[in-house]
């Protein structure tokens, strides 16, 4: 590699901003509490640690929502996060909500099944925000948002996302400083939608590689050609650029067809924090 890419972050500074963000954006909406889907993985562990620090652990509800094929290890890791943070928790299987829909379509592939599971977890998450009187805190990182490695209206659904501007590599660094159990930091990232699934296996590259490339493309505004000249393999660069482009739809609200003089999204412009 001809260009040195340094993704290291000052974790104290980031922690301060992200806990302040969670506190501000929840309380100004009139809430004090948060609900998080805890998968047992790194990202949701980090969001849970941040929310517990921002709001107090008694004000955070962690949900563990395994499907029957989910690994027991994931559930065990989620329990470790609950124990370490002291947050409140509920655990229940989504199997009996998911299986009747899957049973209607015998030809259903694992992608569709995985999306159903992710969306079922979203339904439970949002229902529990009403029951717990809190807001849904998101767990998507910058890498997966850019690559579109997420289920629309599934795991990407949330009221606010504290870690969406941190690459996976940076989330891992933040996790260490927050005291996330080492076994969670070390294990290969997985959506755990089917047995043996890993992010890096499915994506076809490692987070360590793609984070550096995305950092140059997005943060440093390198052209694809400049990334190739910096030492990245041409095929890899083009595949990632195309993947980012194709998934733009997952990063925005659906476009509204404009017919009136003033239209939400085009010329009706207010922040969500309007008036608060």
């Amino acid at each position: 590699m001809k260009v040195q890419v340094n993704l290291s972050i000052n974790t104290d500074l980031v922690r301060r901003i992200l806990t302040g963000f969670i506190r501000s954006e929840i309380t100004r909406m009139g809430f004090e509490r948060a609900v998080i889907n805890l998968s047992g993985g790194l990202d949701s562990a980090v969001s849970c640690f941040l929310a517990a620090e921002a709001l107090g652990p008694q004000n955070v509800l962690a949900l563990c929502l395994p499907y029957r094929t989910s690994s027991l290890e994931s559930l065990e890791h989620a329990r470790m996060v609950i124990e370490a943070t002291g947050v409140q928790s509920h655990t229940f299987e989504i199997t009996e909500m998911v299986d009747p829909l899957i049973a209607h379509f015998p030809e259903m592939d694992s992608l569709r099944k995985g999306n159903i599971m992710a969306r079922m977890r979203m339904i439970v998450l949002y229902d529990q925000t009403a029951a717990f009187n809190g807001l849904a805190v998101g767990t998507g990182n910058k890498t997966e948002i850019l690559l579109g490695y997420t289920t629309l209206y599934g795991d990407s659904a949330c009221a606010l996302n504290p870690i969406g501007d941190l690459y996976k590599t940076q989330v891992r660094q933040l996790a260490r400083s927050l005291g996330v159990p080492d076994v969670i930091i070390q294990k290969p990232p997985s959506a755990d939608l089917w047995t043996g699934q890993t992010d890096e296996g499915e994506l076809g590259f490692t987070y360590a590689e793609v984070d550096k490339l995305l950092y140059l493309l997005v943060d440093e505004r390198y052209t694809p050609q400049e990334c190739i000249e910096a030492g990245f393999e041409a095929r890899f660069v083009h595949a990632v650029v195309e993947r980012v482009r194709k998934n733009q739809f997952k990063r925005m609200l659906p476009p509204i067809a404009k017919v009136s003089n003033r239209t939400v999204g085009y010329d009706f412009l207010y922040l969500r924090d309007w008036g608060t």
Partner: protein
Amino acid sequence: MKLCLALAQINTVLGNVQKNLEKHLAIIEEANSRGADLVVFPELSLTGYVLQDLTPMVACRPRVDDPVFAPLLAASQRLDIVVGFVEEDVRNRFYIAAAYLSRGKVLHVHRKVYLPTYGLFDEGRFFAWGDSVQAFDTAYGRVGMLICEDFWHASPPYLLWLDGADLFIFMSASPGRGVTGKDVLDSSRWVNHILRAYASLYTSFVAHTNRVGFEDGLNFWGQAALYDPNGELLAEGPAFEEALTLVEVDLNQLHRTRARLPLLRDERTALVQRELNRIVSDRTHFSGR
């Protein structure tokens, strides 16, 4: 002469001028009780920053018959006040503005002349461009005010310097960005680099206030600062939290620094004007608009 300067780094309620006004009056009272002569608020301190379509709803006019400015002008009988607001002019154009209030009068209004409209900024879409950069006299000497992007261009501070300003009051609502391994954000490092540079190059005092709090995902990093004519940091507020930072400014430092370093004495303004005329009239070079 000494000036007790109070730098107010506050959070605001987006689009709620009344609530922000109440906070201003409380902080002015606190600054007064702590002996301040002048209290400075950040950019758009009466309105919040990312106003978008709220802009026309929060605009006011810096006059004694204005319901927002009337209590501020009354408070300015006790100490001088600099506030940030949206100004609507007589022909209904909206400006990002700063007003210097003293003894019940509006001494000066500065309208932001550089509206960043790139990256995360969209000011040019909602606001009119100010068209004047002028210093003005106060009880504490001649002062110049600039708002955020104004001082990212080298010329407005230069004009204020030539126009006699010895105290530069810079006001920001600077969104925090750029986390690296360092213990401050890139945005904080960038701003403090240039504040120090202006203080050193113009052998003048540079005061800076900056918002704190969040607007949607944007954070504002605070760290109000005062640099002296030697480029030394005399006072700095905390990062990310509301604070009123008081600092005693010994205005005689201007005398001592300029005795050592006569940059103002030696400044060749006629040469600048001559070369500027040549450069601007030379159509073969594109040197800005």
